[in-house]
Structure formats: C-alpha cells, structure tokens
C-alpha cells in the first residue's frame, strides 16, 4: 500500500466549503431561539454610578435585561479577575456592561441602546509605560484577592503587574566582561486583533433537567465546559459543548467569554436557545485581542560575533484582564534567546494591566512579538560588529548539546536543524547579492532575514483521546476533540490513521464537529500541537483496533495472531495471503458458519498526554515548557521608494524544519497564511487609541488586514529533521509562518531606508518620521 503521507491531500470537508453546506455556529437552525445583545462600555476606565434598565425592559419583545447585579461572578482561565459583565467599574472600551435578551435580534439590539449607564470617568492607563510608572493608576484594586485557576501566576501587590516570569542562566557579569561590543534596544508593539472572518458566537439552552447545552465557535470546548462548571458550580457532566466548523481561530477563540454570557442569558430565560453573536466591532474590541509589548534588550558579543550575554525586560500589555497573559509571559521568557545560544542570560517578563482590550493567545503565542525584538537586536549587533547578519545568525544558532533558557538540552530531534533552514533561506532569497540594492528606477530593493523558534508552552497534562468505530464496510469513523478551525487537522488525523491502518483515506470518515458529550477529551485546539497530541492518540487507537482485529482474525483464520498482517481492510496470513478475512467481517464481531458470533462491535481507543513537562522555577525559570521546538528562517524582500517612503513587499520566504511534511500543499498553505498575517502586523495592523483609551479603529474599514494583490510572492520550503517522538516525525507548524515575518520586514526596511525600526506597524509615515528625525 502506497504511503498516504507526503502527498497533497484534499481536506475532508472541502466540498461542503465550496457549496455553502459547511455550517458554522451561527448557521445552525435551532428553534425556538431568543437573541442576546450586549451593551458595551463607552469608556476605557470609569466607575459605573448607575445603570437604568427600565426603558430597555419596557421595549417590545424584551425578556430580560441583565447586569452584573444579577450575577456577581469573576472569570479567567488563570486568574479570576474578570466579571463577564462589568461590575462596579469598566476597565476597557468595549467591555460588556449589560445584556438584553429579546425575541428578535432587532428587538434586543434596539433595547440595548435604551439602557442608560451613568459613568464617572477615571484616569486611564493607556500604555505600558503608564502601567508600570511609580504610583500608577491601579486597574485592579483587589488584585491579590483573586482566585488562581493555575498555580503558576505571581501577581505583585499594589501594582498593575499580574505576573512576573524570570529567567536566569550562566554568569551575567562574566558575559559582559567577555563581550567586545554591547548594544541596547527598546521596542514597542501595539495591540492588534485576530480578525478571524467568523465573529465569535455562542448559543446556550438550559434543559428542564438542568443540563446546559452550549454551541460555540470555540477552539477549546473542553475548557469551556470546565470553566462553566467552575463558575456556575454545575457538575461537568451536565454541561455539553458542541462546536461545528469554526471560521478561523488564530488563538482568539480559546477563552470562554460569550459562552459564559450565553449561560447567564439562558438562566434568565429558561428553556429557550439563546443566540449571542459578536458584531465585528465587538469581536475586535469587546472580545480578547493580540498582546502589545514593550521591551528593552541589552546584548553583548565577542569580536567573532558570538553572543556572550543578554539582559532583557519584557512587559506585555495584557489589557484589562489577565486571561492567558501570565502564560504568554512565560512563553516569551522561556524562548527569550530565540534559536540562539546565549550562555549568560537574564530575562524578566511581566504581564501588566492597562485599560486596553484584554489579550489572549494569538498565532505565535508571543513568539512573534519576542522575535521582533530579538531579531532586530541581532541585525543591530551585526551592524555594530560590521558583520553579515546572516553570519551572526549562523554563528550563534543553537547546536545539539546547547542549553535552552530553561536549561533543557537541545537535540536534533527536539529542536530540528536551524542551520539547514538558514542555508536554504540564503539561496532562496539570494542573500549573497547583498542589501540594499539601488534599482534603475530610483527605487531601492532590500532584504531582511530573521529566525524563528517556538515550543508548545502547554500545561504539563495536555492530552487527548481518540475513539475509532467501524462501519459495516470495514471503514472507520474517527472521533476526536480537535476543532476544525481551518488548518485541516481532522484530515491530518485521518492521514495518520490511514497510514497506520494501511488503508485508503477514503475509508476514514472524520467527525467534523466536536461534541464534548461524545467526542473524547482534547485539551485545546491550539499551540500547533494537534498533529502531535491527537496524532499520538490516533496511533494508539489504531494499534488498539489492530490488536483486536488481529486477535479476532486469528480465531477466524485458525492461526496465531503473529502470523497475520493487514492491508486494504483485509487481515491475511503472511505466508499464505490467500487465507484472509476482511475487516467488514470482523468489525461487528466474528460470526461462525453456524451463526454463533464472538466479540461485539469493535471500538478502538487511544490516548496520549504530554510527558515529562514540569513547571518553571520561579527565580531561574528552570523547567520544561514543551516537549519539542520548531525552528525556521524567514526573509522578506521589499521595494522602497526613497522619495515617498512607500514600499511594497516583493517576496517572502520561509524555511521551516517540519520534521516530516504530512500534507505538502496544506502545510505550505498554512505557512503562507501565517506569513500573510505577519505582513499584516508588519504593515498595517494595530489598535489606535485616543488619549482616553478609546479604540479608534473598530471595524475592518479602518482596521486594515492585507487584501488580494497586496501580498508578495511566497516561497515556502521545508527541512525534514524528524522529531522522533512525533507521529511519523512531524513537528507542529500551524503558527510558525507568522513569527519572524514582521521582523524580517522590519530588517528589510531598516536596510532600505537606513533607519532603526523599533516598532510596528511600519507605515510610510513612520519611515518618514524616522528619516526626518535623523
């Protein structure tokens, strides 16, 4: 049987997606249904003096108007600091303040507009600098009283700092002493948005027996279930979360937000489905966004370009609530050296509260922000040393045996081969022709390069199970808890199963929707970990099913199971393949000639959990945050107009060590999508705040994502250094395409315009300002 792996494989749900048959949460036909709409805050920081709901309650069709007065509750997946509806004060512009439930969507919206809220404005924490200055305005007065949902959260009393992660290795004074050249840099990155095309949506109904049914566009249905259970004190088994196809996630659909509100609404209107759908404006600011960052880095290197020491401080703009940002701080800290070996190191990474929309995981999980700072530093270092930035990267790239910032040992299997990626990149971007290059038309062509690295940063118990059931034709139904958010993870799981079972992919049927009542547990569809975690569980389930099939076939074929082999849904005797039995005659049990049947319908089950992960030491960061890393190298080539300071990307290149490419076209597509998003962050995307912390660009009219024709030519290639413990060697690659693209662009602009680029996005006006300042 020809291998299924390494071949371009069309996703299982392709036909549904080109015919309109594919259903997303808000497409589902549930009846009867009530509609919930939010009233959101018009201030970034203000005391709620009064909420008058009387007019809204009197509006036609209105069933309920809900405020925090109806359910004092605090939510948060790590630190319970966030009321689902603002309680006492609002902490960001767009924060949900009240909710209306009405018969019609229009009625709910109309009534929401009639709720009168009296605010008393408070001074606004409108930047990281304002959050960490002496005697700052405090966003959370009760910070130390919040319940921790996870142990690894260390808030600092009396500050806006909700978590601090430290890394310390080697001997920093010695590192500085060994450095010939020491440079410093400061960087700021704005908050931005996931911009998934499907806005977040949640539905909920409370059944007569108290079961809570939720339908949601979530990447994390099992977390939703667990969080709802904890918040409302409902037994987990009575909560059922269903997720159909999801219209893009990018990390933004990992927090329980609308689900919590939908449950609150459903409790107010018993026995009816509640439909709560974000408008685009709400999706941009009311729901969580992409972190902002401020960083200062000092880096020293010996004359030969070897980096000897680095001291780094990062502040994450987590916005008004902690949500996952302590974990983002940890992720940045554990990867703070990038794919480079820095023997003497100190890193301090804090998550700070501001009066901005709150941050959550975003494609790259902080690594895209870290890479910006670090890879700008590497270019600056190369400049200071008068060396080729490519060589500086090559010289410092990690080798097997080097220690990571967490003091984990690097191996080829756990990290892949960054050098090979760099060498490939060098050819693909034609690095040796040099940069910048003056073109005949008064334009300048320039290139920038940068490296990427990312590990999973999963909890130490992240795991999944898979269930296989069989159809009477011997084909298999694959049921797992991974949500299909776009990268074809269900198809990847099917490929892995087909490969192990030595059968056609056509005979693997995937359950596209997830239902926590029937689909086995999966931690979350995040962190580029589905191929690894689900993949390993699939392999275990396949082995379980095969064991059963072979044992039953052994009875049927009157021979020991070890004499049997299988292929194409048939079990046969190895030394005489004319003796065989088909899967279809085994999967419902084996029936003897006389009708007697043994062994019932076959179920294959497999599970997998991350192994040997451990929390980080609070003082040094020693520990293990992931089981493996994915590395790569990226480049962007631009054409720059030195008169107008405008530019356009010509070419973008990514080389990733994928371990093993299971589905080349899909892999390439996911990487290109990440690159496009990275260019968006580099060129356009940011939340713009007015002096009062009000987000000025809350629609796609003004929050600009790249469109057709604005993108460069993409070149994507892979290196394949197997990760030995991963399914067929395949590493996670879902997020990685984004990571070093913004900084590769920045390095290209720095080269073209001869300016120091220390923030994103890079607009022509920014370049003009830097040029005129200089």
């Amino acid at each position: 049987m020809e291998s299924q792996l390494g071949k371009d494989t069309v996703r299982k749900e392709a036909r549904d997606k080109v015919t309109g048959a594919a259903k997303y949460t808000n497409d589902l036909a549930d009846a009867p249904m009530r509609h919930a709409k939010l009233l959101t805050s018009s201030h970034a920081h203000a005391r709620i003096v009064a909420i008058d709901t009387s007019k809204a309650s009197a509006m036609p069709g209105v069933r309920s108007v809900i405020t925090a007065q109806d359910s004092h509750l605090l939510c948060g997946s790590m630190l319970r600091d966030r009321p689902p509806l603002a309680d006492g004060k609002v902490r960001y512009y767009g924060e949900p303040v009240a909710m209306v439930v009405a018969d019609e969507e229009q009625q709910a919206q109309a009534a929401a507009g009639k709720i009168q809220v009296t605010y008393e404005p408070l001074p606004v924490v409108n930047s990281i600098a304002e959050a960490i200055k002496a005697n700052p305005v405090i966003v959370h007065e009760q910070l130390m009283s919040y319940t921790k949902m996870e142990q690894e959260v260390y808030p600092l009393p009396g500050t806006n700092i909700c978590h601090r992660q430290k890394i310390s290795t080697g001997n920093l004074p010695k590192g500085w002493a060994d450095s010939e050249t020491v440079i410093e840099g400061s960087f700021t990155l704005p908050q931005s948005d996931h911009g998934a095309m499907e806005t977040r949506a949640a539905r909920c109904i409370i059944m007569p027996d108290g079961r809570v049914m939720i339908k949601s566009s979530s990447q994390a249905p099992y977390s939703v279930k667990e969080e709802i259970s904890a918040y409302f004190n409902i037994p987990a088994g009575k909560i059922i979360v269903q997720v159909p196809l999801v219209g893009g996630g990018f990390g933004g659909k990992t927090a329980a937000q609308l689900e919590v509100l939908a449950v609150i609404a459903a409790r107010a209107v018993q026995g009816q489905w509640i439909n709560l759908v974000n408008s685009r404006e709400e999706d941009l600011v009311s729901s969580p966004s992409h972190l902002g960052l401020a960083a200062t880095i000092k880096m020293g290197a010996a004359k030969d370009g070897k980096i000897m020491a680095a001291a780094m401080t990062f502040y994450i703009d987590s916005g008004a609530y902690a949500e996952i940002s302590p974990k983002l701080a940890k992720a940045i800290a554990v990867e703070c050296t990038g794919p480079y070996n820095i023997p003497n190191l100190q890193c301090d990474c804090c998550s700070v509260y501001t009066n901005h929309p709150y941050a959550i995981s975003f494609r790259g999980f902080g690594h895209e922000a870290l890479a910006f700072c670090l890879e700008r530093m590497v270019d600056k270092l190369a400049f200071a040393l008068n060396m080729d930035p490519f060589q500086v990267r090559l010289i410092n790239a990690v080798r097997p045996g080097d220690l990571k910032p967490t003091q984990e040992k690097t191996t080829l299997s756990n990290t892949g081969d960054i050098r090979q990626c760099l060498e490939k990149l060098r050819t693909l971007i034609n690095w040796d022709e040099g940069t910048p290059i003056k073109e005949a038309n008064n334009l300048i062509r320039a290139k920038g390069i940068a490296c990427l690295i990312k590990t999973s940063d999963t909890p130490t118990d992240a795991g999944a199970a898979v269930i296989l059931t069989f159809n009477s034709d011997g084909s298999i139904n694959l049921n797992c808890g991974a949500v299909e958010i776009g990268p074809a993870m269900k198809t990847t799981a099917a490929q892995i199963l087909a490969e192990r079972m030595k059968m056609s992919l056509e005979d693997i049927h995937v359950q596209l929707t997830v239902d926590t009542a029937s689909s086995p547990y999966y931690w979350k569809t995040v962190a580029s970990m589905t191929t690894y975690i689900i993949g390993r569980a699939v392999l275990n389930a396949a082995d379980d099913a095969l064991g059963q099939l072979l044992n039953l076939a052994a009875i049927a074929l009157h021979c020991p199971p070890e004499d049997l082999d299988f292929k194409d849904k048939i079990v046969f005797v190895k030394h005489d393949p004319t003796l065989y039995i088909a899967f279809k005659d085994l999967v419902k049990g084996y029936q003897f000639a006389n009708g007697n049947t043994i062994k019932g319908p076959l179920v294959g089950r497999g599970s997998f959990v991350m192994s040997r992960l451990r929390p980080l030491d609070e003082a040094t960061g020693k520990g293990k945050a992931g089981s493996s890393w994915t590395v790569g190298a990226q480049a962007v080539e631009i054409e720059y107009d030195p008169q107008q300071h405008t530019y356009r990307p010509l070419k973008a290149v990514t080389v990733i060590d994928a371990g093993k490419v299971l589905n080349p076209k899909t892999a390439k597509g996911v990487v290109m999508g990440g690159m496009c998003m990275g260019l968006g962050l580099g060129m356009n995307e940011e939340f713009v705040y007015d002096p009062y912390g009000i987000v000025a660009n809350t629609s796609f009219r003004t929050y600009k994502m790249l469109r057709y024709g604005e993108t460069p030519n993409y070149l994507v290639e892979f290196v394949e250094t197997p990760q030995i413990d991963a399914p067929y060697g395949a590493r996670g690659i879902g997020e990685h395409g984004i990571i070093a693209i913004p900084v590769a662009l920045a390095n290209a602009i720095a080269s073209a315009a001869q300016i120091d680029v220390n923030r994103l996005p890079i607009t022509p006006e920014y370049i003009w300002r830097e040029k005129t300042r200089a």
Partner: protein
Amino acid sequence: MIPFDFAYYRPETVDEAWGCYFNLVSANKKPLYYAGGTEIISMARVNSSVFDAVIDLKGIPACHQLTLQDGAFIIGSGQTLTRIAEFGAYPLLSQTVKRIADHTIQGQITIGGNLAGTVKYREAALPLMISNCRVKIMTRDGLLEMPFLQIFDGRLRLKEGEFLVSLTIDENDLQLPYNHVKKTKMAKIDYPLITLAAMKKGPEIKAAMTGYGDKPLLLPADMLNNDSLPPAERITNMIKLLRDDCKSDLSGSKEYKEFVLQGILEQLFKNFAEGS
C-alpha cells in the same frame, strides 16, 4: 441588522419623491433619500443615523440617465460608480470613482450618495469641482439647474427635502489631460490620506483634493498657475496657504499630509510639463 423599523418608498418621478418627502415630514416622520444605501445601512446599523422612512431614488428615470448628448455628459444621481466608470465618457471621473471603496461596493454606491453622504471624503466630487459641471436639483420650485460649485462647497448645500437629480459635464472638459492620485496610509482599499484630481485646460491647471482636511477643497488656481514662480515655490506657497485646512486623522498627521501633498504636486507639475 438594523435595530429599528422604517418604511420604504420607491417613487417613479421627482415630483412623487418630493411629495413623498413632505408628506412624511408633515406626518412628523423623518425621511431620508436613499440610493445605493451603503452608507445609510452601515450607519443605521450602529444607530449613527436614525430615520422613519427611506425614499429610494433609484426608480426615477431622471436619476438614471447616463448619456452623452447635446455636448454634455449627463449622469443621473442614482447611477452607480461602476456604471459611470464603465461608460467611460469622462476618464478622470472613471478613474476617481474606481478608487472609492472596493469594486463590489462600487456597484452599489451611487454618485449622488457619494456626494450627498456624510463621509467627509466625497472623492467623486473632485473631477466635478474642476470641470464645467452643472447640477439639476429638485427644489420647491421644481427642477433647478446651477453650477456644481454653487451648491457644493465641500458638501452639497441642499435645503430640507431637496435632492440631486443629475449632473451635466461640458463635453469640452471630458478628454483633457488629467492626473489622478490617491494616497492612503498604507492599504490600497482605504479612505484617502490625500486624493487629488487635476486637469489641464489649455495652459491652466485645475486641481481639487480630499482627505487633506475636513472636506474636498479646490487648490488655489492663482497660485497653481502663477507662472512667475517656479513650481517648487508655488507648492510651498500653497501648502502654507492651506495649513489651517490640513487636519490630522486616522490616515495620517497634518505634517505628514503636507509632505505627501508636496510629493503629489511635484509629480503633478512634472506630468503636465511632460504632457504639454
């Protein structure tokens, strides 16, 4: 989803539309004239515009003209940007409207809507401001015709109930040498940082721009065409003169806009010099 109800009228004549408007007003209703609907719907959706009725002008033949006749190009106010661009009689106008919003929406936006709407840019006005253009307005005295610039000073100065019926552009102005530049913050599909339309009639350059301030403006013709000064000096003078009109917004700061305008005008002079 629009959070309030309203009535929809689709009159077939200008008089019917006029009558409809004032019937509603006398019944204490707030009517709005409606054409492409793109701005009205997007504003109504967020309660930025609230009304009791819309009067759709698209069914009125007079608002639907698109023809070259009697030495003029006549455009009904209800014509879509796409149809106007495809008709192609006035290349500068075609090019200007093809850069408003995006291609799909150009099939919905009407020229009347772009001129009469509340979004400050009104890019379609630029080619009309610099050509010999007359408008037909429905008024209490019936249809009145007047020069475009008499009723448009950055926005249409219509009295209650009045509406734009059609535009007439002198044939002699349609095929003159022209320049159209649209600069945005970064993205191609965006509101303008500056959009400038210019044409050269004989020796004289005429130009209008939007995005620079709160509304479309004409560039001072005397300074633009002051042959006693080299272009660079004329540009400096104009930027100085327009300093108070220049406004910072989401697209860019005032200072940056001045820099960009300088580049646009340098190129403009160069293009027209080469062209002649």
